[in-house]
């Protein structure tokens, strides 16, 4: 099947999630609780930025207006970003960082698994590579969720607070745009809403082993997929884009 331009918005959601979450993760560099975690978090940030680089490059090529991955990363406004709100929230303490990675990487594993069967062979190739990385991220964060939840009273409290604070941002991961039925039926992208039961089963299992409670929140925050972000993204992008935008047209 030839590349499909209607894929571009879907690719921006996938790429922007990784770019923004990768950025937040990279903020830990040199500040982690232990040197091993500096290595792990920088490695995860590198994987995520690498995934974003490939996905945005593909999006730019399909879009066909001459924007490459750097134009998409550094020269779009916050309202043009399509990441889930979960990814842009401030990094918080180590508990927030780990619980967010846990929620997002379990989603990522399911999403990459499905995308590795995409009819778009470029995307399928990217997904197959990214899947291995995301499996490691899920193992790393899941292990920490269990240690923090079942560690000390303080770590249990912090981990539970992180789960409670982030839970209402998880629903957006599984919101499937109504206008993309064609992409799903053409085998280009999965319907992300179908990934939720498997995600939820794994989350429940790990939280139970971590002696943590699944929150009973009914309202799920949304907006990132439509460019309606939290107040945090603008500040994050101001930092990320400052050098590139100060020297338009420059090569680096």
């Amino acid at each position: 099947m030839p590349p499909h331009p209607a894929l571009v918005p879907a690719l921006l959601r996938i790429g922007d999630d990784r770019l923004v979450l990768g950025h937040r993760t990279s903020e830990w560099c040199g500040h982690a609780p232990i040197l091993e975690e500096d290595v792990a978090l920088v490695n995860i940030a590198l994987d995520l930025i690498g995934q974003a680089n490939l996905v945005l490059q593909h999006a730019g090529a399909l879009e066909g207006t001459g924007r490459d991955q750097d134009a998409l990363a550094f020269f779009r406004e916050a309202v043009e970003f399509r990441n889930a709100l979960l990814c842009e929230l401030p990094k918080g303490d180590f508990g927030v960082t780990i619980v967010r990675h846990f929620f997002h990487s379990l989603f990522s594993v399911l999403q990459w698994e499905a995308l590795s069967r995409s009819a778009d062979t470029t995307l399928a190739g990217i997904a197959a590579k990214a899947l291995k990385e995301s499996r490691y991220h899920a193992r790393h964060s899941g292990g920490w969720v269990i240690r923090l939840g079942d560690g000390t009273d303080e770590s249990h409290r912090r981990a539970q607070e992180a789960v409670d604070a982030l839970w209402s941002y998880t629903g957006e991961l599984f919101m499937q745009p109504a206008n993309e039925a064609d992409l799903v039926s053409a085998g280009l992208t999965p319907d992300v809403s179908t990934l939720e039961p498997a995600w939820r089963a794994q989350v429940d299992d790990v939280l139970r082993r971590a002696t943590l409670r699944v929150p009973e929140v009914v309202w799920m925050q949304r907006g990132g997929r439509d460019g309606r972000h939290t107040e945090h993204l603008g500040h994050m992008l101001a930092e990320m884009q400052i050098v590139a935008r100060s020297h338009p047209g420059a090569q680096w």
Partner: protein
Amino acid sequence: MTTTSTASEDSSRLAQFEARIAADESIEPKDWMPERYRKQLIRMMAQHAHSEVVGMLPEGNWITRAPTLRRKMVLLAKVQDEAGHGLYIYCGTETLGVDRHDLVQELLDGKAKYSSIFNYPTLTWADIGAIGWLVDGAAIVNQTMLAKASFGPYARAMVRICKEENFHKRQGYEIMATLARGTGAQRAMAQDALNRWWWPSLMMFGPHDKDSTNSDELMRWGIKRKSNDELRQRFVNMTIVQAQAIDLTVPDADLKYNEMTGDWETGPIDWDEFWRVVKGNGPCNKERLDARRKADADGAWVRAAASAYVEKHA
């Protein structure tokens, strides 16, 4: 055992040890070694490990602002290498009978040193180029020598680390070369970074040989194979040519080429500045230590959780 017999036993062991050094044998952790040798190695290796860890801070300062995704990925990979080097050298130091956590505590208490170069701020993107090119470049000159050090674990660590440092230096020089042929503003940024990092990188080799307190002992025992001044000269000769190739100017009005020796001779190094920064009054000494202390304090509950979990499930 009396003190006298211990002393004579030690002097015969010392003679054997020094014969092994003279024969270029590698000293391994379980081998007998003079206490001073052990102490000097612990000091040097711990300083090296601390430098890798503190060195993550000035470069980490630009990860979130790297101007392209490729540059961001390369910088992340570089900083990840440095954290890995830190771990690797701490583990190597532990073979000498010390605990990594005690070494880290000495750093946090301000009792241990790390490379003074990381007490300078990274002010523009070009500083990331200058650090890779000059700081990693100087580190390679030093570490290539240390790869032949008499203590096996340190020498082997240096062989591995040098391979990665070469990639770090190349990416730094490539950043500088790209900026130097870029826009006027980029060129100015590159020259400014060279102006600020040149002299501190020469100071990385330590005081002149005549003023270096540790050098004699380190060289006698084969921990160091070349003197500070020899290594500095090697770095200068290499780097001047590289600066010329990308049309940047080293900030030294007295720099001249000596036809007889083939050496580039620099003007005087400001040793007052060197000692000021070593003694804690560089632009970022306090910030760097504060950042490490904050990371340690903020992470205490995480480390406690990991230990508690292991105990519960032992």
